[in-house]
C-alpha cells in the first residue's frame, strides 16, 4: 500500500473515534460541540507519556483514554443538567477553554540535548514513539483499526444490552425514561465518560501518528465535524458515524478534481443530504429494515 493510502486510512480510523464519541452523546439526545477537548486531552496525555516519561505506547493510550474519560465525567456533572442548545454551547465553551489552556501549557523537558514537550501555541513536537521503536506505518494502521474494531464490538454489544436500550430511551425522551425508573443523570454521565474516553483514545493515536500536535488542531471545527459525521452517516447504528467519516474524508479525496471548489461542492452535498435524510443515511428506520432481513425470528430479550 502506498504511504498516501495508509495515511488516509489512518486518518479515517482516528477521526472515527471522535465521531463515535459525539455519536454516543447524540444517542442519549445531547449535542456536544466539545468532544475535541477530550481528543486534545488524550493527545497531550499520550504524547507526554511516551515522549517525556518514556512510557510504552499501550500504557500511554490507556492513560489517554482514562484521563479523557475522567475529565468528561467531571465536566458532565455540571453541564448535563443543561439540555439541548444550552448543553451544546456549554460543551463548546469548555472545549475552547481547554484549547486556550493548552495555548498556555508549557512543560518542556531536556531529553537527549533537545527540549521536548508541549510549548504553548508553538505546539508539541517530537512525539516520535513509533519512529524510535520501529513501528511501521502499516503496523500502526493495524493498531488503529484493532482498537476501532474493539470499540465497534463494544457498541454492538451495547446496542443489544440493557444499557444501550437505556441510552436510546433517554435520547427519545428523558422524562419518560426517568418515569420508567432509569437513573437518567447517572446514565448520561456514564455516556459522557465513555464518549470522553473514546475521544481520548483517538487523540492518543493521533498524537503518535502525526508526531506533532498544537492547540489549534483541537478547535471547534474538529468538534462540529465529528458531530456532523453521525448525522451524515446516520444515527441508527454505530456504523453511521464511520460511514460519515468515510464519506467526508473519502469524498473530500475523491472530489479533488474540483480543487479549489471542494468545500463548496462538499458543503452543498451535505446540506442537500440532510434535507433528504435528516437523520442520516443509516437512520433508525433503515437499520431496522436491514436488521429484519437478517433476523427472521424476533431476538430474545435479555
Amino acid at each position: 500500500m502506498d504511504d498516501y493510502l495508509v495515511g488516509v486510512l489512518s486518518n479515517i480510523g482516528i477521526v472515527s473515534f471522535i465521531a463515535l464519541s459525539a455519536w454516543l452523546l447524540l444517542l442519549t439526545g445531547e449535542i456536544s460541540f466539545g468532544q475535541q477537548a477530550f481528543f486534545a486531552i488524550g493527545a497531550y496525555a499520550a504524547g507526554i507519556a511516551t515522549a517525556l516519561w518514556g512510557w510504552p505506547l499501550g500504557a500511554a493510550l490507556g492513560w489517554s483514554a482514562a484521563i479523557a474519560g475522567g475529565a468528561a465525567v467531571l465536566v458532565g456533572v455540571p453541564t448535563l443538567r443543561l439540555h439541548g442548545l444550552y448543553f451544546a454551547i456549554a460543551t463548546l465553551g469548555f472545549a475552547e477553554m481547554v484549547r486556550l489552556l493548552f495555548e498556555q501549557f508549557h512543560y518542556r523537558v531536556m531529553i537527549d540535548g533537545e527540549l521536548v514537550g508541549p510549548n504553548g501555541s508553538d505546539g508539541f513536537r517530537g512525539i516520535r514513539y513509533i519512529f524510535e521503536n520501529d513501528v511501521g506505518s502499516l503496523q500502526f494502521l493495524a493498531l488503529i483499526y484493532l482498537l476501532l474494531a474493539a470499540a465497534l464490538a463494544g457498541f454492538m454489544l451495547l446496542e443489544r444490552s440493557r444499557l444501550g436500550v437505556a441510552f436510546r430511551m433517554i435520547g427519545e425522551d428523558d422524562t419518560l425514561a426517568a418515569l420508567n425508573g432509569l437513573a437518567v443523570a447517572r446514565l448520561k454521565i456514564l455516556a459522557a465518560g465513555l464518549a470522553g474516553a473514546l475521544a481520548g483514545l483517538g487523540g492518543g493515536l493521533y498524537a503518535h501518528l502525526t508526531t506533532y500536535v498544537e492547540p489549534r488542531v483541537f478547535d471547534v471545527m474538529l468538534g462540529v465535524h465529528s458531530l456532523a459525521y453521525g448525522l451524515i452517516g446516520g444515527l441508527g447504528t454505530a456504523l453511521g458515524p464511520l460511514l460519515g467519516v468515510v464519506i467526508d474524508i473519502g469524498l473530500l479525496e475523491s472530489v479533488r478534481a474540483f480543487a479549489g471548489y471542494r468545500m463548496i461542492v462538499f458543503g452543498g452535498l451535505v446540506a442537500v443530504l440532510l434535507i433528504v435524510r435528516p437523520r442520516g443515511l443509516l437512520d433508525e428506520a433503515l437499520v431496522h429494515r436491514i436488521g429484519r432481513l437478517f433476523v427472521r425470528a424476533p431476538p430474545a430479550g435479555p
Partner: protein
Amino acid sequence: MTALRLAGALAAAAACLSAGAFAQVGAQAPQAQVKMRAKADVACRPTSTALHYDCTIRLTNARTGEPLGGVTLTVGADMPSMPMMHSVRPVAAPPEPESGSYRARLALEMHGDWALQLNLSGPLRDRVVAIVRFEPGRAESRPGG
C-alpha cells in the same frame, strides 16, 4: 453508583485492550536506546502557478548538527486548523547537490498555515514537522521546527 463503577470498569477494560494491542506491536522492538534524530529547516518560495510552492529542505542530525544526506525524503502536508481534512498526497523530495539539502514542489489546496510532514526513510526513519504559512506570493516558516 453502579453506572459510575461500570464506567470505571469499562475504562480499565479499554486500557487493558490497548495495552494488549501494544504488546503485539511493541514486542518486536524493545525500547530502543538513544536514536539519531533529524532536524529540518524549510524554506519555501511561490512559483508562477498559484498554490504551488518550491521548498528547499535542509536536514541535519539533531545532535551533531551535521548535514543529513542520503535519506529518502517525502513531504506531506496537513492543516492544523482542519486536522486530517486536507492531507496532501506526499511528494518525493530528491536530494540537491549540496549534502543534506532536498527539494520538493508542493501543490496545496488553499492558503494558510500548513504542517509539512517530512518523512525520512532509508538509513534513518523519522518524521519531522515544520509549520509554514503559505500566502499568495510568499511563504514563511514558523521558527522552532
